[in-house]
């Protein structure tokens, strides 16, 4: 049914789904991500990885609820939200939602225009802040994201190209909880992007296939394409790159990432109360910058235009 070249094996549907679940459990156990009696909040986007992760965690017997952030990226966000809501409703699952514009008065296209930075920057910042808050407010033990092997290998590739040692030191599949922040876990790090898409097809998970119009052409996607060229001629290269880094290199960068308290994260944000290195946290600074900004809409080609 599906070939997984880095395992040099072909799998039928049932054995492939077993492989995916087993690899997820193996990552959870190896990196001590989650215990059976803990509650986990799955950050769901409507894409293949996060919906598959939610499905897998439930099948493996974990207590997993979903959390979706409406990013306001035009019809793409509308369709993504619809996939998430249908997934949860069909299975009778608990889904928490926050809409950026309704709740905080801005959306990702507007934030990108106001800050003049890549959309992924304000998108990631907003999601991290809201995931953390939702997990802490809801009493969850951890936040799980659908980052897969391809995601982690691409981030590692980018960080290595520029020797961003602080980021390298913190590129781990699990980040422990600390004051004001929940534990962050990435249970899909042993599974490739193609495997997650295949899992969704075989499992009947209806996900949003279209790419985020604001991510088109970004560096991360370029790194993935480059690594896939290498993988095509050298199956297993991505896995060896990432897991070799975890086994033999990440500790060498430990000095580049001081503990958060040593890095100056000793104050609480004067607006929202999260630990921060400055008086106002990055999310609240983004709120301040976007306050009163003219909303920005997307054209069909993903270009930004004022409404």
């Amino acid at each position, binding site marked *: 049914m599906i070939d997984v070249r880095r395992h040099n094996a072909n799998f039928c549907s049932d054995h492939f789904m077993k492989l995916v679940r087993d690899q997820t459990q193996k990552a959870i156990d190896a990196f001590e991500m989650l215990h059976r009696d803990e509650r986990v909040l799955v950050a769901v986007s409507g894409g293949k990885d996060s919906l598959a992760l939610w499905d897998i965690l439930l099948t493996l017997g974990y207590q997993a609820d979903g959390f979706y952030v409406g990013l306001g990226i035009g019809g793409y966000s509308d369709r993504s939200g619809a996939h998430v809501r249908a997934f949860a409703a069909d299975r009778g699952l608990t889904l928490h939602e926050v809409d950026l514009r309704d709740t905080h008065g801005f959306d990702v296209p507007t934030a990108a225009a106001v800050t003049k930075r890549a959309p992924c920057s304000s998108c990631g910042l907003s999601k991290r802040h809201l995931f953390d808050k939702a997990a802490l407010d809801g009493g969850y033990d951890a936040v799980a994201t659908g980052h897969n092997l391809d995601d982690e290998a691409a981030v590692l590739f980018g960080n290595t190209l520029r020797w961003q040692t602080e980021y390298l030191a913190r590129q781990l599949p699990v980040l422990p909880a600390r004051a004001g922040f929940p534990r962050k876990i990435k249970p899909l790090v042993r599974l490739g992007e193609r495997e997650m898409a295949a899992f969704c097809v*075989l499992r009947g998970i209806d996900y949003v296939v279209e790419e*985020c119009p604001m*991510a088109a052409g970004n560096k991360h*996607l370029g790194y*993935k394409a480059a690594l896939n060229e290498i993988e095509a001629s050298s199956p297993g290269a991505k896995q060896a790159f990432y897991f070799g880094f975890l086994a033999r290199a990440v500790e060498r960068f430990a000095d580049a990432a001081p503990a958060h308290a040593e890095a100056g994260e000793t104050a609480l944000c004067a607006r929202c109360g999260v630990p921060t290195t400055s008086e106002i946290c990055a999310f609240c600074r983004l709120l301040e910058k976007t306050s009163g900004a003219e909303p920005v809409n997307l054209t069909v080609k993903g270009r930004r235009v004022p409404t």
Partner: protein
Amino acid sequence: MKVNLRNPNRTLDLDGPISIVALLQKLDLNRESVLVIRAGTLVPGDALLAIDDEVEIRPVISGGSS
């Protein structure tokens, strides 16, 4: 044979029979980056597509840099 491609959505009419590997080579697509789907399920890499088949070639790469 109809081949449905995504991002953007478009359909190609191609001659068959043709193997999956040959089809992806013809379209200059990396096997690591796509799935081939026929009638709602995956098509094995060594399968031969017939002239009257209709398949979807679905990209699997996604994600921003956050």
